[in-house]
Each structure stands twice: as C-alpha cells, then as structure tokens.
C-alpha cells in the first residue's frame, strides 16, 4: 500500500508525457483527418533541435522550445501544403505519403547522427523532489505542468478566437464550414502547423528525459494513437485525460501485474472503450464517422 501513492504519481507523470505527444496528433487526426504516421518524427525533430541548441548554443532546453516549436510548425505547414494538400482526393495516398515522410525523416537523421544516441541527461534533469518517501523527477513534473498549460491554452484558443472557431467548424462539418465562408484549406494549413509545432514542443520538453535516436519517435507514437482514439478524436481534453488514464493504467499494471504485460492491459481498455463508445471518452458522438464519410 505504501507504494500505491508512488505508483500513482509516476503514472500521472507518465500520463503527462503521453498527453503531451498526443495533443498535436489529436489536432491533426481530429481536424485534418490525416493519420499522420510522421508525427513521431516531428517529436524526434524537436528533440534533435533542442539537443543541438543546448550543445552548440548552450541554450536552455525549455527556452529552446521558443525556437524549435515554430520551426517544426513551419515544417508541418510545408508538409500540409506540399504533400497532403495535393493528395486531398486520395485519402489512402495521404496515409502512405505520411509513411514516406516517416522513412525519409528517420533516414535523414540517421545519416546525420550516424546512428549514435544523443542525450543531455548527464548534465541536466537530475533534480528530484522528495516528499516523504515520494520521489518526483523535476523534469517530468515540468512536463506534466507544461502539458496542462498547453491543453488549457489550446482550449481557450479553440473556444475564444475566430481561427479556433473555424477549426472547430471544420472539425464538425467540412462542407457546411465552407458554405459559411470558412477557408478550409487555410484552416487545415494552420491546424497542421499547430499540430506539428506541438509535436516539436513535446520533443524539446522531453529531451532532458530520453536518449535521442532517429527511431525515438516510434516509441511514443503507438501509445499516442491509442490515447487520441481513447480520449476522443478532436477533443483537446480527451487527449489530456486519455494520456493520464493510459499513464496511470500502465503504471499500475506494470507494478502490480507485470511490466511485460502493461501495454496489453491498456490496449484492452482501449478496445473496450472503442466498442462501448466509439467516439472515445470525450469525443463528440459521431465524430469518429466523419473521418470516413465522403466529404468535399
């Protein structure tokens, strides 16, 4: 029982990481309706960007978010404009195209890094808060707080701004939004840009925790897709709470059942949610259909 609190805490902290990498994916998946396989690689770019800013320029990793996130965002805009948009009538091809991007991005970084793992964990990120028996890693706590703030920020953006309202309108019905005078292409461009920037931000925030390799994005993306579907397509809070749920379930299953079975346990929950409530826990009912309904 004494470990219960400890497990809960590291589960929540892990949930923060899952939430962080899922928010951008959720936006792209939920609004642009693209299964972006290259999302993990955008996280990876954020990590390398942060690493180089730290090693070459001595920039604090949290400060480098301000540089790295917009750059990855611009890359996202370019992807949407140059790759996704020309294929707008070929939704299967869009998926293959993002897979092509995944391979390309990984191999570019492979060539540049020669396959060596990079890390900044030796010089920063060792701080631990001790509360009684509880040990809380400061960098992970920062990640959870950042995820919460980003979620609130995104929520406000989508509710309060014209652009946010346009994004929500497009999420609900592309055709009706167009009739209302919303520039759907521009909305997609901006959404993809924001989604990519969020991935870049996630990468930068996670740099103090992980060793960076060209394949590191793949470690997060499987869980992120599950979090997005579990939480609800297009729902900002869905991604946040979906992340926390997966994190906590994984922690408890790993500690109390078996570390080798932890993924199996939360994928089981994922399947049950999908069957009982296909729109996800916090998704608008019917949202899951939109992605497969013919829309022009």
């Amino acid at each position, binding site marked *: 029982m004494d470990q219960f609190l*400890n*497990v809960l805490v*590291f589960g929540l902290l*892990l949930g923060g990481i899952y939430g962080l990498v899922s928010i951008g994916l959720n936006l792209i998946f939920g609004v642009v309706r693209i299964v972006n396989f290259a999302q993990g690689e955008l996280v990876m770019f954020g990590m390398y960007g942060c690493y180089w800013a730290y090693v070459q320029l001595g920039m604090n990793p949290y400060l480098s978010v301000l540089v790295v996130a917009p750059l990855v965002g611009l890359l996202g805009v370019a992807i949407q404009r140059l790759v996704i948009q020309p294929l707008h009538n070929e939704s299967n091809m869009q998926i293959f195209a993002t897979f092509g991007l995944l391979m390309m991005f990984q191999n570019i970084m492979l060539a540049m890094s020669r396959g*060596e793992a990079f890390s900044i*964990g030796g010089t920063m990120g060792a701080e631990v808060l001790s509360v009684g028996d509880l*040990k809380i*890693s400061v960098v992970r706590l920062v990640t959870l707080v950042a995820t919460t703030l980003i979620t609130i920020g995104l929520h406000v953006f989508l509710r309060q701004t014209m652009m946010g309202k346009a994004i929500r309108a497009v999420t609900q019905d592309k055709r009706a939004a167009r009739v209302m005078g919303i520039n759907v292409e521009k909305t997609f461009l901006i959404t993809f840009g924001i989604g990519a920037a969020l991935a870049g931000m996630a990468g930068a925030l996670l740099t103090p925790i992980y060793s960076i390799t*060209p394949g590191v994005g793949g470690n997060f993306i499987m869980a992120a897709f599950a979090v997005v579907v579990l939480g609800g397509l297009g729902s900002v809070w869905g991604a946040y709470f979906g992340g926390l749920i997966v994190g906590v379930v994984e922690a408890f299953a790993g*500690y109390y059942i078996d570390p080798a079975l932890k993924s199996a346990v939360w994928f089981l929950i994922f399947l049950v949610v999908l069957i009982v409530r296909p729109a996800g826990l916090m998704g608008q009912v019917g949202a899951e259909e939109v992605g497969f309904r013919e829309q022009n």
Partner: protein
Amino acid sequence: MKTLKTMAGLALALGLGFAAQVSAQQTLKIGAVNPYSGPLALYGTEVTRGYELAVDQINAAGGVLGKKVELVRGDASNPQQGIATVEQLATKEKVDMFMGTYISGISLTASDAAMRYNKLYWETNAVSNALTERGLPNFIRSGPDGAAFATTSANVLKNLIATNLKKDIKDLKVWLESEDSIYGTGIVEAQKRLLTEMGAKIVGVGAHSARSIDLNDTVLRAKQAAPDVFVQTGYVPDGNLLLRTFRDQGFKPGAILFVGTGDTPETLEAIGAAYLEGVLVIGYPRSNDITEAFGPGNRAFLAAYRAKYKSEPVAPQGMAAYSGALIMFEAIKAAGSVEPDKVHAAALKLDKPESSYPSGFGIKFDKNMQNVRAWFTASQWQSGKMVTVFPQNAALPGVAVKPLGRP
C-alpha cells in the same frame, strides 16, 4: 594493315584477359557482410575496419595460400539484405568465402545463403548461441557467444562483486533484468542457471521492452526486492533510461552490472560521470586498456588503427573482429584451402591457450565450431572513463576496483 591492327588488338585483348585471369587467381576474395547503411552502419564499419587491418597485415607478410587477400564489402542492414548481399557477392563478385557480422540476425540468414554456394562463412562478432547450435557445415565462430556473456557475468558476480561487497556468493541477492527479446531473455536464462548452481539468491527476474518510455515500475519492483546487485542486459536507450530512473527513484543497489552495452560515450552523455562512477560493464576487451600479457598485440592494433583511420576506435568490436580475422587466416593456412570442410577440419585441430590474440582469445573449437577460448572482460566506470578490472590479469598495473555502490 587493317588485319594486322585487328590481330594486334585481338592479341592485346587476349593478353589483358590472360593477365586479368592470372591476377584473379592470385587474389583471395573475401566478402565482408555487415551493415554499412542504416542505424548500425557505424558498428558494421567498425567491425570491417578490424578485418581491413588484419588483411593489411597478412598482405604485408605475403598474403595467404600464396594469394593477396582482397575484401569486398557487402551491405546488409537486415536479415533479408543478408541473403541478397551474399548472393550478389557470390555470383557477381565471385568471392571465395565470407566473413561477418555485427548482428546475429543478419549472420543467421547470410551464412545460410553462403551455404547454398558451399562457401565458408567465418563469424567474428555475432553472439547468438543459435548460430553455432545449427551445426551449419560452412559456419565457424571465432568470437565469444551469448553463453559467454552469461558465464562472464556469473564469474564477475562471484569473483569481483561478491568479494568487493564482502559477501559469500551464497548470500548475494541478485536481480536479473533484460530487454524482452530473445537476446536479453536468453542471456538472463543462462545467468539464472549458472547463478543458481553457484548458490546465489535470485530475488527477481524482470523483462522490459527495449523501446520503453518508462521504467519506474521495473525499478520500484527491484527496489522492493532490495538486491545487492542489479544485472541488466539490453540496448543503449533502455539501459540509459534504467540508470536515470535509478537516480530519480533513489535506488542504490550495492552494485550495478551491465551486460553488452553501457560502455560507450552515449551512456556517459546520458547519465554523467558522477552517477556512473563504479558501474560495471561486461563487453569486448578494449585496446590500450588491457595488459599485453592478456591481449598480446592490442597496442599494435591501436597504433595501426590510428595510422590508417586517423581516429580512435569507435567501439571494442573492431579489435574482436581483427583477432577473429587473424584466427581465420591461421585456419585457412592450416587447411591450405578455403573449402568449408577443409577449413573446418583444420580449425578443429588448432589449439592455442587463452591470451594468444589481441582480444585475449585463444583457439579451441567445439564440435559446433564455437571457439570456447573466447571471452568477454569487465570494465568499470571510473571518473568518466571505462577501465578494465576483470579478469585480474587483463587489468593494467595500478588499476584498482573503485567502490561499487551509488554515491
């Protein structure tokens, strides 16, 4: 006139062809199968550098079987490519035999493909036990296998760690952790068997995915079991995450032993010298960090490496490859041929004590053509550097084992 020119041309062409044929006969072509592209290119190249240095040395001494040796690289970054590259080297490049490999999975398929051409596949680096257990007639391994990882770790636990912690091996509480593929779990199984025989107390066995993004559960479980020693067999990223989680959770086992990885600058960069101090790693012997008595020629290897590549060795795999290539040339000389069955028979008769080669290897092949006199060594992180501490005759004079516990 025209006829004369044609005839001269023909004669010249014939002559050139003849000359080419002679030079082909005087060259022994060896296909070097390794990943030269993809994530493992760095290490595949490093292994091949070991071969190149051995080939330079053998050619300078007049070659082997009266022929000059030529290495032909065949890129294989996965098992499928292993087959394709062997086929290409056998048919297009017409190599006489093969050697490799940084990765066991690639060796498995490539050596099988080489068998179809009835050509020798000399293995210097891949460690999977399955490779020699197949009993493939063209396959010989000069380097240590996975079982050697387990044997060396059991020896280190008994003769170095238990002694240092002032405990009898029978009182030593051990946690065995690994990544969850056949590589890690296979070694853990062998470790468990050996340690149980020695009477050590296995207080826990854990497996995690090499792609894990959180290992708090594993570390908390281990912490509850309060082991004297935590033994990890895995890859670089999961090993780094494990050490970082130890640090975050304040988990301080009496000793930490890493098997196979954890000895590179990647781990130093991820954890920092202060926390790594005292951590033990089992791996290939490193040049310039072992005595000449243990690895005769290891300094000469380093000097040749620096002279040829103008850099420091990337990983100790290169010297193991170099030692393996030297053993291979010895076997070929003894066989007077590169035909698999002749080399096989000749290699079985070779008998050299341990510490005959730069990596400390000797030669004695078992019936599966596994060299049973090839071992790993153990090193310790000391002030941000890896220092060989085990076996004792490998450690440089003046080297002492630093305290094993965490600060």
